[in-house]
């Protein structure tokens, strides 16, 4: 019996040390929901017991059912003929299993058939599903679309669409990217026009749309004729019709199980979702933030699978009369992989906790009564919004880049065998490669995070983490390394912030990544130390991470402080030689 929750000590540690008291109390309206719904918890312990039991079932489905099907799904992929996408029968079975398990509306409110779970718990499911079959996550994770309708749609739209998602009857797609608008979504051109009765219609093209064959689409379109920037864009909901044509599906490097489609809109009727002109600036940003958390978890799940393959292979493969995991070059790789995995997970669930808090306070701000919106609520809403806005891109950058490295090393440890199609190593390597590209490249995550780094949004969190870690003993030694890094980091941030001349702009853009990475090293280092305090068995893991990070930190710091600017001046000569 393979259960992707119970066989994973790091994930269990995370689950056992959740700090969701405030979140659950808010989500459950001080546990008054239990009077209305027999599925609602009566107190925090009751809530966590429910989460654990549901996660246990998803862990079993992932380990026992989805994972064994994943190789065939990757091999065959979906089928496309006459404009119709047919998913692989095993993908269909996977979705049926998850629908029967009742987890297609995990974060949606109960009145629409959802489970009303925190994002943190949903993210744990995402991680386990991705470990079993990365491509399935792209279908399972489309619940974020329903969440967007839940957050910004009208009551009528919530009633109309959400129950269909929850039962698994309807699936979703978010149609943002166009041939000429990838990272630069402000330039989206798909046209939204209204007839004399106020009915909206969509005309144009979308490209690289994950699950573009979905029944329900959220579409970013230009509703304000004559505009060219993000403020002329609105969000629309439309249903699949014959006028919404799937022109082709892509042949991709990885995540073969899910169809990525090119769509043509031939005057497709649509409903406006939320307010006009807020499409990109508010709704898509929110949607993308949710999706970024999901992709962090997807990357983490793939990395977990890759690490396990590498570890297993290294312990079984013998060369020079011993298993290869006895060689320093190999165990060094494995130790870094494991530390990277634990670090990514620590940051991811710290992020989801902030995201959950932000969502709860956001909900009160948008739907609460005047009495509920106190000064304290306002401040917390603002604070967690800022924290989540830094942590989300930091987490995505860390998880996806680390996962890429882990999958790369997984093949390396397999040697020539890993290059062959017969082993899963090459599939993980192909699947993981998209994670640091879609929902915003790592380069764009840096852009999203750097503002908060310069504004020192995380200082309060960092200081309270430092305060909780003793200065003595072996953990104190590691704390000393981190506090040295923190002081230098603040110095480097200050150094750049003070460069205010307009000609310094390229330097700011160039060094943003170094600063964001160093912020991550310090913050995640502290999270790792905190977890070592909670469970001493984790101390070597924390030490591995902190010591590795300290060397990478120094490199970044040196580049910022002493790196010079030659690439800005001379890149043309270098590139064009």
């Amino acid at each position, binding site marked *: 019996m393979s259960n992707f929750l119970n066989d994973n000590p790091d994930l269990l540690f995370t689950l056992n040390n959740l700090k969701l008291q405030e979140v659950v109390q808010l989500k459950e309206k001080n546990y008054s929901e239990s009077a209305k719904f027999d599925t609602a918890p009566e107190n925090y312990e009751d809530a966590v017991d*429910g989460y654990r039991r549901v996660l246990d079932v998803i862990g079993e489905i992932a380990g026992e059912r989805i994972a064994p099907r994943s190789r065939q799904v990757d091999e065959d992929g979906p089928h496309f003929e006459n404009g119709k996408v047919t998913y692989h029968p095993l993908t269909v079975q996977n979705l049926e299993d998850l629908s*029967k*398990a*009742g987890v297609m509306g995990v974060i949606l409110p109960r009145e629409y058939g959802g489970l009303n779970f925190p994002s943190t718990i949903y993210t744990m499911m995402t991680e386990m599903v991705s470990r079993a079959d990365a491509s399935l996550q792209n279908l399972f994770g489309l619940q974020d679309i329903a969440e967007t309708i839940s957050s910004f749609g009208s009551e009528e739209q919530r009633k109309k669409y959400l129950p269909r998602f929850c039962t698994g009857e309807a699936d979703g797609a978010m149609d943002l990217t166009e041939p000429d608008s990838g990272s630069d979504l402000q330039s989206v051109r798909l046209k939204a026009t209204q007839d004399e009765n106020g009915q909206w219609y969509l005309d144009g093209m979308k490209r690289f749309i994950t699950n573009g064959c979905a029944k329900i689409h959220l579409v970013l379109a230009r509703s304000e004729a004559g505009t060219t920037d993000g403020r002329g864009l609105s969000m629309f909901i439309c249903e699949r019709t014959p006028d919404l044509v799937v022109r082709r599906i892509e042949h991709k490097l990885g995540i073969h199980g899910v169809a990525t489609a090119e769509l043509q809109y031939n005057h497709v009727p649509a409903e406006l979702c939320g307010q006009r002109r807020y499409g990109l600036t508010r709704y898509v940003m929110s949607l993308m933030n949710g999706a970024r958390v999901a992709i962090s978890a997807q990357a983490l799940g793939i990395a977990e699978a890759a690490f396990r393959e590498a570890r297993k292979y290294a312990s079984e493969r013998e060369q020079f009369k011993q298993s290869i995991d006895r060689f320093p070059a190999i165990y060094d790789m494995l130790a870094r992989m494991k530390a990277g995995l634990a670090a990514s997970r620590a940051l991811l669930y710290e992020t989801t906790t902030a995201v959950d808090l932000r969502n709860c306070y956001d909900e009160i701000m948008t739907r609460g009564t005047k009495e509920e919106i106190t000064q304290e609520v306002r401040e917390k809403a603002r604070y967690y919004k800022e924290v989540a806005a830094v942590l989300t891109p930091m987490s995505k950058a860390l998880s996806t880049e680390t996962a890429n490295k882990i999958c790369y090393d997984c093949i390396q440890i397999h040697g020539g065998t890993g290059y062959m199609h017969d082993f899963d190593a090459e599939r993980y390597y192909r699947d993981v490669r998209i994670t640091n590209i879609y929902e915003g490249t790592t380069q764009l995550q840096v852009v999203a995070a750097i503002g908060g780094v310069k504004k020192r949004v995380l200082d309060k969190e960092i200081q309270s983490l430092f305060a909780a870690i003793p200065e003595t003993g072996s953990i104190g030694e590691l704390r000393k390394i981190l506090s040295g890094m923190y002081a230098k980091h603040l110095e480097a941030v200050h150094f750049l912030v003070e460069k205010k001349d307009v000609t310094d702009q390229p330097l700011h853009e160039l060094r943003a990544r170094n600063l964001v990475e160093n912020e991550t090293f310090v913050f995640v280092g502290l999270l790792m130390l905190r977890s070592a305090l909670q469970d001493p068995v984790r101390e070597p893991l924390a030490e591995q991470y902190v010591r590795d990070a300290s060397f990478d930190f120094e490199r970044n710091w040196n580049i910022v402080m002493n790196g010079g600017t030659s690439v800005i001046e001379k890149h043309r000569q270098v590139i064009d030689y």
Partner: protein
Amino acid sequence: MNHKIIVFVKQVPDTKNVTGQAMKPDGTINRAALPAIFNPEDLNALELALELKDRYQATVTVAAMGLPAAAAILRDSLCRGADEAVLLTDRALGGSDTLATSFALSRLAKTIGGYDLILCGRQAIDGDTAQVGPQIAEKLNLPQISYVQEVQDYTEKSIRAKRAIEGGYEILEAPLPVLMTVVDANEPRPQNAHRILKFRKAKTPSEVVAACGGDAAAAAPEIEKLRSRGLLIRELGAKDAVPEDEFGRLGLAGSPTKVKQIMSVVLTAGEFKKIEPTADGVSALVHELIEDHTLG
């Protein structure tokens, strides 16, 4: 028409995950060394019942005989979609062999009543006898279809099922009520999150009492609360299901099977003997088996 289906399920030691000493010196199973699980083919039987519930109108009652801890598989069944659960538990039932078990379950079926279909797994992994289902049918005087893979039709009066036979399958039709034993031919649905959140709290009265340290008076309000929420698992003792004059047929007293000796058998290829499928051939074989004490 609203069908009523009873599914008999059993909690068994997980013989695939043996930790420590699985057998006691007396040849009985050391349950403490083995994790307790839902007998796999009983899950197939439950899945078939739930599929029938999806396709036709039916209520599904899951029933088990066993230790108080067997309530765990009843909760599991409720989380997968069963409508109600009944546990028959009593010291008087301890040590039952297939004869005593099937007798007790036949009386339990009568007590539950109103059924037109009884489903059992083909066999349990702790004994592999495949006798209990057919014996229940005999005792209830019901037609039976064993080794069922799927049901093709389920009307007001009859059922048509496909059953596995050596080298193929056959399709049988039987009048209701009927008993069927089910093989591993479907994929049991997972527990459903919404149902988990509700039914994880379902308990038998004795579980509630045990949680209150054995204080029945203290447990009463909680039992009432569970009952009012539909979360009380019905619990019956031997007296609730079996007339007192039949008590001799229960438990150890009602079980003629005795374990004489157990040994680990390593199978190797040996001689074989062809038996003609005639009355004489079978009779000669039976004599031979009696002589070497395999039978009798």
